[in-house]
């Protein structure tokens, strides 16, 4: 049973046709899609960076605005992939019947889900690529190391896409998707070393953050990249992300297959 849920699906390049479909829709509606990633960093940097940062000053020897800049990117990576593969995928699956239409072609259900996950990851990468110029303009990220955020956003995005798709596969309705949004995404936004260092939390909470809050690892890597402060611990972060992403990729595909093929 458990073994079936983590079975390696048989995938072909057909998955990219589903990815391409979502990209086409994204490009058709580019005006609405391109505005948020420009606006979002402005709001955060001004409110938290200048507003709150004025009181905080420095964290260690890092200016507060530089400290939160990578967290803004990490949160955006999380949100773009997570909401794409929860509400976005659910609407396509349930209301649009898009998946039903696609699986009448040689594309399999496994490939449909893989395409959705790859698209969620791509969306995180596109958003990161759009936010980066704003952050560079504010002078809050190092160059050229920060360019690494773009490929990393794909990996981080894939992690959150896979998490999201697991919820989508088991949710009884679109309203029930509010639970993971509030009970999982919101705590991560606050307790993953985003707006204050995770080290100020009690040790037990730190352990929880490192084990069950994926954003912690994503923030840690983003911060290492934008501050050019690479530490061996980032390899642990990377390994955690790689292992969990792989496992949840398989799990989400198999859960969705179980939901849709009856």
């Amino acid at each position, binding site marked *: 049973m458990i073994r079936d849920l983590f079975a390696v699906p048989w995938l072909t390049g057909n998955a990219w*046709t589903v990815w391409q479909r979502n990209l*086409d829709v994204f490009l*058709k509606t580019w005006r609405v899609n391109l505005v948020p990633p420009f606006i979002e960093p402005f709001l955060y940097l001004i409110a938290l960076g200048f507003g709150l940062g004025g009181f905080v000053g420095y964290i260690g020897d890092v200016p507060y605005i530089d400290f939160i800049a990578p967290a803004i990117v990490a949160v955006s990576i999380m949100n773009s992939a997570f909401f794409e593969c929860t509400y976005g995928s659910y609407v396509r699956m349930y209301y649009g019947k*898009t998946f*039903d*239409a696609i699986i*009448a*072609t*040689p594309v399999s259900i496994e490939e449909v889900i893989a395409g959705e996950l790859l698209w969620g990851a791509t969306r995180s990468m596109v958003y990161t690529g759009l936010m980066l110029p704003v952050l560079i303009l504010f002078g809050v990220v190092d160059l050229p190391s920060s360019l690494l955020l773009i490929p990393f956003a794909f990996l981080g995005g894939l992690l959150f896409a896979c998490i999201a798709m697991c919820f989508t596969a088991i949710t009884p309705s679109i309203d029930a998707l509010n639970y993971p949004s509030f009970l999982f995404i919101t705590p991560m936004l606050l307790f993953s070393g985003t707006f204050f260092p995770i080290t100020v939390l009690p040790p037990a909470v730190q352990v929880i953050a490192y084990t069950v809050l994926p954003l912690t690892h994503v923030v840690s890597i983003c911060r290492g990249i934008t501050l050019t402060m690479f530490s061996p611990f980032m390899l642990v972060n990377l390994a955690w992300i790689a292992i969990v992403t792989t496992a949840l990729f398989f799990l989400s595909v198999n859960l969705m297959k179980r939901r849709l*093929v009856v």
Partner: protein
Amino acid sequence: MEPVIEAVNLVKQFGLFTAVDTVNFAVRPGEVFGFLGPNGAGKTTTMKMIQCASPRTSGSLSVFGMDPGTHSREIKEMIGVVPQETNLDTEFSTYENLIVYSRYFGIPKEIAEERAEKLLDFVQLTEKRDINIEKLSGGMKRRLILARALVNQPKLLILDEPTIGLDPQARHLIWEKLKLLRSQGNTIVLTTHYLEEAERLCDRLVIMNNGTILVEGSPAELVRDHVGSGIVEAEHSPEVVACLLDLEIPYELAGDMVQVVTDNPRMVAQELLSKCDAKRVLTRAATLEDVFLKLTGRVLRE
């Protein structure tokens, strides 16, 4: 000739519910084969098994000689599906729907574009080429789904209630297109609960009820074998009923009418008029509807 689809003792269960209960049928190349039955008869479930969307519980099923359980990709490359539910991609225009769908089949872009134009012309939607599909009428959407099912030039076309909810004009247009496709040598399988549709289109059909196949044959054969050539109807009054009993003519109740199935409608009508003093007498040829109601009963299906 080897059948395009062959089902032997095909069964589909959902938990304890048996949706398709040990059915046997074979579809020959080039024919229009119909599945007729009331709601919940198991028609759609059977279609889903053929189109590799739903695994069978037991029995054997082959499509083009292949097992849908193990060769779904190969089978799906060769079939076109018109589902009961309209599942066009609402994010795209009429033309784009065909292009995006062609991509799922791996059809090269130039070929897809050429085919899309031709198919839009075939289903008479060229004028609506660049309109978002949400602005299309119900009939237009069904026609576009038919065009979409043809992008891969399928050898077998599967249509689940192709004209459901359409007005007569739109229905006739779909029928015309299906007849054209049949004349080009396509094999077509369709489900319907419109008897007229089955009678007009199908070379052979099965009538399903509660997951089983009741009868199989051509529409004319089924009418002849199960009903007879003519039907005489008269109003359902105690006098008429008493008179029919008196004359020993078997009859059936159908709403506010009594129905007599006979090979000699003229004589029965005369008897009813002269001896039974019936006020309203109607004779007509028996249709598939009479077969259908006789076999599946007159009880309302929910």
